[in-house]
């Protein structure tokens, strides 16, 4: 029953050749096989959102997907947000608006919000709150996360 699959994962533009059991979740593979520990594991059953990554541009819970299913897909994690020594605008906004305290949920929130903003920067406040209700944060009370994401959404809208 320990059948292994040799697969190639494309994460943040780089290729990772890994050998995994079918039951290995995408998040365990990203962290333990690929060494990208920026993606966090919280509940392991799809409730908390800490493990949210982008798969072909869509935010998904990487604890609810098996690594074998992610072959040939474009995966993006929090490590891929920074360009050189420049943080992603949403990372800057999280700092400015104090949208994190302990930081455990932050990679999940960043990937959730980046994935959604890249598709619809024109989110209404109601839609924004609906999206951000996806993930759990136990420190901030969400208000500052909402402010940070809204600030970036505004600047994206202002850009022609």
């Amino acid at each position: 029953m320990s059948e292994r699959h040799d697969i190639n994962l494309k994460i943040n533009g780089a290729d990772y050749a890994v050998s995994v059991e079918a039951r290995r979740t995408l998040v365990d593979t990203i962290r333990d096989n690929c060494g990208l520990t920026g993606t966090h594991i919280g509940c392991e059953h799809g409730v908390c959102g800490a493990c949210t990554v982008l798969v072909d541009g869509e935010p998904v819970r990487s604890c609810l997907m098996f690594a074998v299913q992610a072959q040939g897909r474009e995966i993006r994690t929090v490590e891929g947000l920074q360009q050189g020594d420049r943080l992603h605008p949403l990372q800057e906004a999280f700092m400015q608006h104090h949208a994190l305290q302990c930081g455990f949920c932050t990679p999940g929130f960043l990937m959730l919000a980046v994935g959604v903003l890249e598709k619809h920067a024109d989110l209404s406040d109601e839609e924004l709150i609906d999206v951000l209700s996806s993930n759990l944060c136990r420190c901030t009370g969400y208000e500052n996360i909402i402010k940070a994401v809204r600030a970036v959404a505004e600047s994206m809208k202002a850009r022609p």
Partner: protein
Amino acid sequence: MKPASFIYHAPRSTDEAVSLLAELAPQDGRILAGGQSLVPTMAFRMARPAHLIDINGIAELAKLSVSGLVLSIGACVRHAAFDSDTVPGVTGDLLRKVVHNIAHYPIRTRGTFCGSVANADPASEWCCVMASLDGIAVARSQRGTRRLPASEFYQGIMATALAEDEMVVAAELPMLPAGTRTGFVEFSRRKGDFAIAMALVAYRLENGAMVEPRVGIGGAEAHARRIGAAEDALRGQAPGAEAFSAAGVAAAAAIDPLEDINNSADYRRGLVRTLVTRALESAA
């Protein structure tokens, strides 16, 4: 919190998938679609399938199409597909109202309509839609194709008329006539949680009176269904507080509510009464 071992299969066609299912279902093989219910259940080891047949790579199952008066939803169509103007008309508007109640954004990008239909969770919004609109589950096996109306398909809590070797390859919903008014309301303690109860209503107006009324209740009973007594309270009446309230009372009296540690039968009855009335008010 790690799933138990299983053997992974990734068929490329529906024929291949049903052939694998015929072979592997007796050996505890299951279909994997969006996995947003199955994978958590596996993480808890409440499900330990020996084989998973992953249908995500089957392009022919990703089709969402309208043909005449029928909307056909392929087995790999995600919840998020309904959060757009892809489906036209009244049915599209209704599905857009409903989809925002399903879990959260990143669940809706993976989970599938037909997966929810086949999983038959009492609190599934799509099961309530299927029951309320008399949808059809299209079940395929190597033995052939069966078209199962929702009223026959749903048999109990997570129990359906599907045979072991059958998979839901599509679900069909009617394109409701222009002018149909619809409403959908559910209640849960936290946003995105399983609903304790939900109500879906639809009717048309003819000479000021409600015709072709539909009142579907989900979450409150073992499976979603239309409540004839509530529809009778609307048929031929003018829309308004009196008829809406009568339909709520009739629905509350007609149901056989589930009970759990947080929700007594009486509480669910009261909730159904309120939700039917609110759904009708939102449709008017």
